[in-house]
């Protein structure tokens, strides 16, 4: 029965008033409860992070962290496709395919193909966010310029890393369907970013940098020298030799600039080589060194027994450098600047430039002691008559770069730039564009 007669009751004095109160109270509760705009107590939103300088500093730190904690992803490809690293038996088939090639063995769905792409664009996204929002904060120019210089530097380094791995990569990712651009266009962007970072830093005093260093920059990171070193590195790649020489000249060779991994964080190369146990140095790297070259022993544990490797006919040794969890990783090594200048001078040509280049090469060769954590060759200087032609110089520069800049993520590009002077060819020319990008990018970058 849905209806039922209500029994007659005595009068209800004063009831409606009480009732009105109760209803009013209930409605008040209802109205007050309607706030459904709850925040996430665990994680701030983007607009909160970028609403003040402290959030911007945290994002700038996060951006450096994104770059620093993923360097293994681009080092692994660089070192495995060249003659630097081999794979241990535990390594996933995707790592082995980089080592063995050919290009057809490398599936675009492999995580090793995706990882450098994904990591770089996450760093670039953070940099873009800083560049777009820091100007809105109305900061003191000294601080604002440091933010923009740092964002431009990391964006340039990420793009620069990308073009060493992939034949074409998108630059502007703020649009809905970013299209991959040729390497030359990307390099122009990298150089423009670094030049702009340089001019931002020109307006900042060392005192300004030091005032924010403890909150903004990783320990052991040298801001100015890194910008100039990157400008030198990518100017050389772009064939802008004068600019490369000028930038390299500005770098102080007496200091290191590093990415640091204090506990509980961990150097990702140590993790890959020892915790995960996927990679090791090829013994051929040690064997091919010139007699007396002290650098192989800096990089590799030359005294150790070879590791079990796959394919089994490759012989690999444990790494010595980056074998402990908190070792810093250099953003660049000072002798790279000498070798950049030597190569640029050689490319510019002319007897005077060749002589200057030979001198720089010999400086690298004859280093026998350093207060910095960097390799020293301890070799004798070469006679000037064996370093007075471009082929001679380039061959020697190629050798020095191999031993001076082992597992620094530069060898793959060296094979492109110094190819004829090298005795090796990489197993693949470039990584394919990752499958997940091919499928989901509306610009259909893979056709």
């Amino acid at each position: 029965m849905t209806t039922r007669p209500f029994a007659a009751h005595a009068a209800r004095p004063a009831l409606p008033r009480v009732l009105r109160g109760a209803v009013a109270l209930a409605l008040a509760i209802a109205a007050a409860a309607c706030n459904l705009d709850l925040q996430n107590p665990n994680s701030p939103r983007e607009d909160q992070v970028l609403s003040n300088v402290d959030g911007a500093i945290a994002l700038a730190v996060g951006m450096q962290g994104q770059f620093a904690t993923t360097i293994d992803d681009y080092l692994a490809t660089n070192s495995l496709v060249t003659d630097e690293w081999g794979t241990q038996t535990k390594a996933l088939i995707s790592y082995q395919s980089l080592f063995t090639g050919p290009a057809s063995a490398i599936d675009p769905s492999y995580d090793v193909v995706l990882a450098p792409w994904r990591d770089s664009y996450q760093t670039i996204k953070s940099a873009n966010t800083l560049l777009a929002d820091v100007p809105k904060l109305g900061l003191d120019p000294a601080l604002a310029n440091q933010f923009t210089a740092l964002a431009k530097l990391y964006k340039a380094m990420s793009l620069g890393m990308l073009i060493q791995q992939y034949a074409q990569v998108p630059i502007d990712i703020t649009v809905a369907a970013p299209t991959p651009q040729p390497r030359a266009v990307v390099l122009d962007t990298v150089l423009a970013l670094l030049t702009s970072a340089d001019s931002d830093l020109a307006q900042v005093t060392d005192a300004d940098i030091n005032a924010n260093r403890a909150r903004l920059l990783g320990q052991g990171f040298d801001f100015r020298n890194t910008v100039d070193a990157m400008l030198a590195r990518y100017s050389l790649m772009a064939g802008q030799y004068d600019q490369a020489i000028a930038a390299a000249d500005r770098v102080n060779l007496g200091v290191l600039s590093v990415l640091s991994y204090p506990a509980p964080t961990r150097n990702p190369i140590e993790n890959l080589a020892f915790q995960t146990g996927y990679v090791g140095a090829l013994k051929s790297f040690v064997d091919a060194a010139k007699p007396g070259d002290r650098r192989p022993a800096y990089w590799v544990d030359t005294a150790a027994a070879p590791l079990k490797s796959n394919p089994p006919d490759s012989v690999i040794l444990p790494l010595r450098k980056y074998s402990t969890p908190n070792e810093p990783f250099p953003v660049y090594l000072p002798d790279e600047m000498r070798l950049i200048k030597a190569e640029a001078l050689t490319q510019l040509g002319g007897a005077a430039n060749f002589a200057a280049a030979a001198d720089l090469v010999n400086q690298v060769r004859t280093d026998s002691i350093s207060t910095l954590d960097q390799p020293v060759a301890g070799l004798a200087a070469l006679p000037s008559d064996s370093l007075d032609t471009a082929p001679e110089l380039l061959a020697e520069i190629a050798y020095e770069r191999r031993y001076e800049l082992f597992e620094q993520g530069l060898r793959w590009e060296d094979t492109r730039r110094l190819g004829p002077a090298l005795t090796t060819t990489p197993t693949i020319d470039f990584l394919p564009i990752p499958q997940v990008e091919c499928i989901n990018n509306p610009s259909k970058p893979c056709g």
Partner: protein
Amino acid sequence: MRLRRSRFVGVAAIAVLLIPCMVSAQQAGTLAGRITDAANGTPLADVQIRVSGTMIATSTSADGQYRLPSVPVGQHTVTVRRVGYAGTSRDVTIADGQVATADFTLTAVAATLGQVVVTGVGAPAERRVLGNTVETVAGQDVSESPGATALDQALQGKITGAVISENSGQPGGGVSIRLRGTNSILGGAEPLYVVDGVIVDNSSEALVSLGANATRGGAALTNRIADIDPDDIDHIEVLKGAAAAALYGSRANNGVIQIFTKRGRSGQPRVTAKTEFSLSHTPAYYQLNMSPTAGYADVVYGGADSIGAPIQRYDIQPQIFRTAKGTNDQLSVSGGSATTQYYIGGGYNVDQGILRSTDYRRWDVRSNLTQQLSNWLEVSLGGNFIQSKADFMPEGEQTQGVLTSVIFTPTSFNPSIDPTTGRYPYNPLLGPNPFVVLNQFEAPENVTRVLGNVSVTAHPVQQLTLRYLAGIDDYRDEAKYFEPPFSTSASFTGSVQNPVSMSRLFNNDLTATYEAQPFTHIGLTSTAGFRYTSDHHEVVRAAAGDLPPIGDLVTGATQFASQSVTEFRTVGWYFEERAAFNDRFYLTGGLNWDASSAFGADQRVQLFPRLSASWLLGEEPFWKSLTHNVFSSLRLRAAFGETGGQPPALYSQFDNYLNVGYAGLPGLVASATEGNPNLKPERQREYEAGFDAGAFHDRAQLEFTYYNKHTSDLVLSVPLPPSTGFSQQFQNIGELSNKGIELALNTVNVASPSFSWRSRISYAANRNRVEKLVTAGDTLVFGYLNSVVEGQPIGVFYGGVYARNTDGTLAYKPTAITINGRADTVMLPYRGTVTLPSGATANASRIIGDPNPDFVATLSNEFQFGKHLQASFLLDGRFGNDVANFSRRISELFGVDKDTEGEFTGDTIPRTYTLNPNGRSLIYEEYIEDGSYVKLREIAVQILFDQPFVHRIGADRMTLRLAGRNLYTWTHYRGLDPEVNLFSANTVARGVDFGTTPLPREFTIGLNLNF
């Protein structure tokens, strides 16, 4: 939530303000009587007696007596109702100060149309009014369910169309319930629980990984509804789909289980005491390799020097399992006056687990108090304080698991204390020595919980009912996992974690119901209401490593701590109109606007409609004449409704920034999951239709329902181009459907003075189908093999298969192996390959099983012999479901299973892992087994004593019960128990047995006393 305090104060203020409004007593008399079974004269308890048109109501005690004081003078219609009997009513006249007697005899029927159910809003309705099915389970069936410590366990076999699984046999073990199939992929699949109108937490998120890994979701060995004492329950109503549950809006996609606790009745205090003692044991042991000579695995793991050498073997299962004891003691007192009714109950439950070192205990007290402040106003308070403590042991995919260790460790390993070192030896293969885990590990979980509610019901003017209810569920769950130093290996320095979860759920409801009869043949019931819910969860975690050698607190050389908080609110406004035409045809329509904090402003408010119709065709005169009363009753019904489901993560609408430290500095980076401000609830649309037909004077009733549920806007993770800096975004993209039928036949087979017999047969078949994923070819894998594939039922097993000849037999190829240093070539089967569209070959995998049952069925029988002897049994069956027997897989691969005894002595397939050069470890097809079973879920014999000796000890009645639970299982499944699931309450990963404790066989003896 700054306003919460004022809200409580407000409720209290209403109550206090209204007390002066109590009117003085008017002229009244008392109504009393006794209600018995028409067939055999046995007194009937729990019969509801209501004086029509008033709030005056009570129910009978165990001796069938009732007493209603303060009934206004005059003529009244008294209605009596009880489940399983035909309701009846009679007019009685009450004189001032006199006692009027009204005795009733009730006739047993199978039909239930007269039963009153609560529909989720203020106005309860008779079942005949509703076009949707509402399943009711009587409290007696829950509290008397032998050996069931948790109420969801006690529901097994009692709800048509529900698949209720106990996931593990550890005490306090979790139960998962699927009502009409699984309705989500990434979201939860368990129903919403509501106790006395208060939404309560039923979390199954593991604080510590003890079965499946906690990160898998829903992986806890227990679920929090286990805290509710089944003995406090009056009855349970189950809303199985959107058509019935629409009023719970965006939280109701998985159905709703409404629990109503016992309340007092007017009359003398009634005391009930119950004590139970139980014994339980494992239903089976694993059959282990007890070969007297060494096999390959023994040699590899150091148990023997050469294959074939004589070897000592150890089956440690008798030392791991035990005969477990349990007790359950309950005491309650209830009663009341005309204006005050109370129920106070308490219980103490102790259960040992069949696995050594596991146990569960629960203390609880409940009180429900109702006060009529006047003849138009009633205030009710309910409170429940619970403390439970479970001691678990790791199992399943935990390498520390005790049964896990049994299936992984070759039987040549003797885990007993080494007499020379005085220590337990370390496990040669994987994980710790199981005896070390049993004796030294600690995995307790302590819960302190308060459930409270206050409600005010008023009839301020004739035909208007206002009801306000506020309720809270507040608990603290303290878990711990302690692994002592050097327990698992000589280099292990110990680990302890101590997570504490705090949870607070608040809800309040305000409803107004107005009843009217605008025309002679049309009655209208209008309801409008408002609901607000607020959930707050917090987990604080402390952990330490490198522990000192003594002590089990979180102290150690390395320490970790973390905290996470989630908050969630919903607001709903609802309106419902019920129309009755000639009391034979009913239409109900409702709208629910529901808003949730989990969604962005544009998608926040969602509308959920519903509509249902019920036609009592059997009461139409034309039908009666047409069918010559073949049917004693016939009803046709149909219903439609929509509900919603919450997203898998509550803050998916935002671009969240995560903490990433770098170089010792605090940093923030954007999450790789892009926020989606347009996210909205998963939406379910359900149609159901059916009939209830009674015959033979309603002694047989058949209920039939067909339902069709389609859930769309399922939240799935959509991959984004990584050049955006993101990896994925949650979007409303998926669809799945559940279609099925439910049949229940209730019969009163015999009803004579000396013997009566009732039966119930239920059958339910559900067909689940994943209709749409992000991309048609997607295979989403959960757990090990459970997959979500378009066009398939959710959670099908997808895994590696053998190569086969064209005639379907296994293909073999010569394979080089080395045994005892001797090279040999044998013919072995191998994994099949397939050719990909690109022309490349890949290892063959295909769908190899389906954990969803084809149908579930139950048969229950109740017998009454004379007045003093009752017997009953319940068979509960599941048919056509597959189980992935990972326990057998592992024990074969490691040479532990009995099947590996004959390795290379005639068996064709070498089973051990080490003799596995063809990649056999990735072939799963042979471990998918038929998991169909029929369990003798409950059996009970009950003897009633009402002889003088009972009265001499002061009691009215005494009942002795002998009962059993899960005493026997009929199945072809080769493992210990086909019902368990490694992944507990996980939505997709079902039907996986992996070192999981089987459900015990339990025998109970109990004594009930009524004073």
